[in-house]
């Protein structure tokens, strides 16, 4: 009995104490809920100082907040030609960032945009519903059909490794960016995500990015995801198509 009490009081090294992990009926960590990142990765996944925005009218509102970055080791290992392309993307970010056009944001960007997303977890499938652009994805935990084509949100196949949800994401198109700073990928992108409970209200989210067309080696991002604790938390609509129609089609309006 005393031994049992002692054991219960001492967290196992390297993982969250089991007693603190909420579990589903099938014994897996319960990731159900509304989550959100609290960082500036959507502006720039690499560390960056605050800087002025590009739209004068937006003043302080349009400025980029500084951030420590979420890339392990700090630097993204671009191949030389890709590094040049990233620079070009950065210069043209005001017109080229797919977020501006309300396009589905891709993975992992969808998980660290300044919008909540909801995880809906069952043994066979895990749905992720994103507030931004009503984007969504299905993670197949059971039988995964083959992906018929390249997609914006990728083709996700998951499994549990202990208390970590591991999701292998492939079949991406080359249209999404990782952030507003022009960090990009090709359609050879392969993403592996790892979701590990850190506490009842936080997850550790780790991502491995592999794309031999763009990067000299695989690289990693990691960050916490936080539970939205508001009692009435719910995803609201952010159907941004309506908000970008003037930008995209305004020049075709009847004068």
């Amino acid at each position, binding site marked *: 009995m005393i031994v049992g009490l002692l054991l219960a009081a001492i967290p196992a090294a390297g993982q969250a104490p089991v007693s603190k992990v909420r579990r589903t*009926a099938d014994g897996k960590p319960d990731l159900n809920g509304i989550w959100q990142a609290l960082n500036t990765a959507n502006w720039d996944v690499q560390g960056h100082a605050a800087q002025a925005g590009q739209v004068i009218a937006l003043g302080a509102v349009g400025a980029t907040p500084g951030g420590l970055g979420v890339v392990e080791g700090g630097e993204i290992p671009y191949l030389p030609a890709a590094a040049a392309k990233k620079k070009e993307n950065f210069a043209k970010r005001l017109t080229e960032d797919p977020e501006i056009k309300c*396009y589905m944001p891709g993975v992992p960007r969808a998980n660290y945009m300044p919008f909540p997303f*909801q995880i809906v977890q069952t043994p066979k499938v895990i749905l992720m519903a994103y507030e931004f652009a009503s984007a969504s994805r299905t993670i197949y935990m059971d039988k995964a*059909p083959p992906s018929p084509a390249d997609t914006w949100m990728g083709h996700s196949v998951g499994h549990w490794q202990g208390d970590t949800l591991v999701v292998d994401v492939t079949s991406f198109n080359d249209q999404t960016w990782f952030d507003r700073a022009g960090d990009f990928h090709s359609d050879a992108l392969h993403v592996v995500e790892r979701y590990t409970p850190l506490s009842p209200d936080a997850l550790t989210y780790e991502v491995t990015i592999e794309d031999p067309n763009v990067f000299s080696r695989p690289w990693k991002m990691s960050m916490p995801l936080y539970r939205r604790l508001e009692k009435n938390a719910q995803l609201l609509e952010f159907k941004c*198509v*309506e908000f970008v*129609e003037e930008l995209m089609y305004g020049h075709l309006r009847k004068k």
Partner: protein
Amino acid sequence: MSHQCVAWAGVLAVSWLAGAPLAAQAPPVAKTRPAAKTWAAPRTPDGQPDLQGLWTNSTITPFERPKEMAGKEFLTEREAADYEKQVAENSNRDRRGATAEADVAGAYNDFWFDRGTKVVASRRTSIVVDPPDGRIPALTPEAQKAAAARAEVARRPPTGPEDTGLPVRCILWPTVGPPMLPSGYNNNYQIVQTPGYVVISIEMIHDVRVIPLDGRTHLPPSIRQWMGDSRGHWEGETLVVDTTNFTGKTAFRGADQNLHLIERFTRTDPDTILYQFAVDDPTAFTKPWKGELSIRKTPGPIYEYACHEGNYSMAYMLEGARTQEKASARAAPEGSR
């Protein structure tokens, strides 16, 4: 024929005869086994009737009863078979136009659609079941004015993106609703349940309805959404979903922001969900009305339907309208000379 026409051409769905034996849906087996009536849905680990899986609501039964079927609530088996044959032939024939332009504009045969091939199992002649004439009740004078204004906008070449329909704009499809009604294609759904939620992932256009079951109140009236704000609860075997807080812009069949929608999902056999909806909007309709259809299991899988990301139609429609205007502006002075 615009994309908009294509989008709405397939607004047809299955109806369901309330209280009819399940025989209608799966004739050979259920007809001889009335015991099927007592079939109860399996339960999720937290005890909810289990609606999970991949589903479709495609059908060729029209939303409202066609005028030529006035007074006829049901088709006979023979009539249903004839109707199915006629619709299949009509929608799959090659529409050849006199000019290349007309040829292309009318070229949408069934290669482009996935509307289903069958009338509803009950052989009802419309999805609208109440009023009994299968037609939506008259709009209030106010709503008629709004509908006429919308129709006027739809008739003219679009002056801007907001003149086109919500599906053309990739904002809202009939498949999403709510109510969730079949359209021309991709009428597919995935339902997932967790303790406290029923979640419906809609293939077209990747919208997700997250329906909380915890008895929370609706959003305050100041927050309005295209898809409204849904709250669910279980009444026995039936999931009841109450939706309010619509925008006036959604304009479902002439409804305004006061639309109060109640949907009922009842799994009636392993392959069928009876889907019923009741529309109440006293400022838009002169009386409440109801519809129903059945949602059937589908093998899937469902795909990512990227609508806005590939919406070339919008730019082309607007470019077309501007080009027409220029052409007629050029023609006018010449004609007056």
